[in-house]
């Protein structure tokens, strides 16, 4: 009973968002209601006039997808390197990776911003994507997974004449799929939700991502809550669909990082 009431409490804000977005002028002077009298999509039209929302949504999607792909490739390669190659200074290099994990984004924001300015990359896709090409968190998690792959498997493959590249792609990668899924979940969510960095580096609407677009919207329509809520609905929909499709993996992936 309590659980059901709680679940209702979790969903009410989403419901309220949808209701506001289709209420004429967002006027709720008559008090809150579940039934909108003259439902209208006017707020959505205003939203699309104010910002190139389709493009912004596509930006968010492809940047999240690209950074996920990059982190999976760079992360799994590094994981293999740390788990399977013996070289001098490996411990030190790995500690350096771990050290970057602890640096908060805020420490990096100013110099990264300057870096992008000097490279003339501010207000470009590159500037959004670049800082998330590799993540030490991914390397750390994937290395654990590679370590758990029995060495006998690659030794057998070596005897059969397979090199590192073959072992990596045909033996290790398929066996660490659950860990790859976990990293994918975190990479995608991280990029999809990131706000501080886009806020710092992007000015033009055509390069904005959804969180930034929404925040900008709020500035433009200070009192038109119907438009702001239409924007919220617009930006929740894609991630809600992704979430519903991949729910099991997402929840399992997050739970996976908490145990150990």
């Amino acid at each position: 009973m309590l659980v059901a009431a709680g679940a209702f409490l979790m969903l009410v804000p989403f419901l309220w968002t949808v209701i506001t977005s289709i209420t004429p002028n967002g006027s709720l002077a008559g008090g809150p209601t579940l039934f909108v009298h003259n439902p209208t999509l006017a707020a959505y039209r205003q939203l699309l006039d104010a910002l190139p929302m389709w493009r912004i949504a596509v930006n968010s999607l492809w940047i999240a997808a690209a950074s996920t792909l990059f982190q999976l490739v760079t992360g799994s390669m590094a994981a293999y390197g740390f788990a399977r190659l013996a070289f001098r200074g490996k411990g030190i290099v790995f500690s350096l990776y771990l050290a970057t994990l602890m640096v908060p984004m805020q420490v990096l924001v100013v110099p990264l911003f300057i870096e992008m300015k000097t490279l003339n990359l501010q207000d470009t896709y590159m500037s959004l994507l670049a800082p998330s090409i590799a993540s030490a968190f991914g390397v750390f998690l994937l290395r654990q997974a590679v370590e758990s792959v029995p060495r006998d498997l690659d030794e057998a493959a070596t005897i059969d004449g397979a090199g590192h590249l073959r072992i990596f792609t045909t033996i290790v990668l398929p066996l660490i799929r659950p860990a790859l899924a976990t990293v994918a979940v975190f990479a995608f969510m991280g990029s999809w939700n990131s706000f501080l960095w886009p806020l710092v580096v992007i000015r033009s609407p055509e390069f904005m991502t959804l969180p930034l677009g929404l925040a900008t919207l709020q500035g433009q329509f200070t009192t038109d809550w119907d438009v702001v809520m239409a924007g919220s609905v617009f930006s929740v929909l894609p991630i809600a669909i992704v979430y519903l499709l991949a729910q099991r993996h997402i929840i399992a992936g997050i739970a996976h990082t908490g145990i150990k």
Partner: protein
Amino acid sequence: MKKLGWVLFFLAPSAIPLLIFTVVPMVSSLWVSLHRWNLISPMKWVGLDNYTHLLSDPTTREVFLHTVIYCAGYLPLVFAGGLGLALALNQRLPGRAFFRAAYFLPVVTSWVVVALVWKWLLNPTSGLVNSLLGALGAPQPGWWTDPTWALPAVILASAWKDLGFVMVIMLAGLQAIPQDILEAARTDGAGAWQRFWRVTLPLLSPSTFFVVVISLINGFQVFDQVYVMTAGGPQGASQVVVGQIYDLTFRYGRAGEASALSWILFAVILVITALQVRGQRRWVHYA
């Protein structure tokens, strides 16, 4: 290919971006923190002045205090709520999958959306929360327009968003507890309450530890929801450390001080995390 070749092949794709986009900025941030700089005119060396100035500036104490209040409000809320939910959903309830999905939906929603939606829910004049409070005859706080309520408003929204995350971690922890230990306690005559305090809670301590460490790290870095809901106001009543770093850089053109503040924040987080890791021996039991 030689051995070194393979090392480079596998490590370079991650090492080069990490070097360019994390290590270099990290070092240059330290350098910037020793200068006075407005991002435009040439940097002026000031040594440790930024640090000493920040440490004696009452604003610094204030933004740290707000950040601590945020953590102190947020952590008990999500922990108690998440644990309660996990315990409930660990039972065989009808519609368990639906509830799990419902509680988890806010976790995948971005902070900006959550902040905006809650700003609207907590709108002092026409928001849903105050309308309901009004209908009940209860007082209707000004929420984000009132200095006293601005921080609680942010805490409420944050707890709502992260409840599902804590729930999932706790559920995973609960499911890792061997059933025979609970059975043994039951046969020894332990009641439900005793089993919870003496068996379940201690065996959940690794999950609890994880939640506390992660929540405090994230809590000290809180920014998105504050920026969107209150922008640190009214009258700076909800300004947090990262908000101050952002304002110092991009509103007041004091990049040197901002960098110094970000290093102070990093040091604080590091010390808190290290203390927790050291302290875990006392209370974290690995089964």
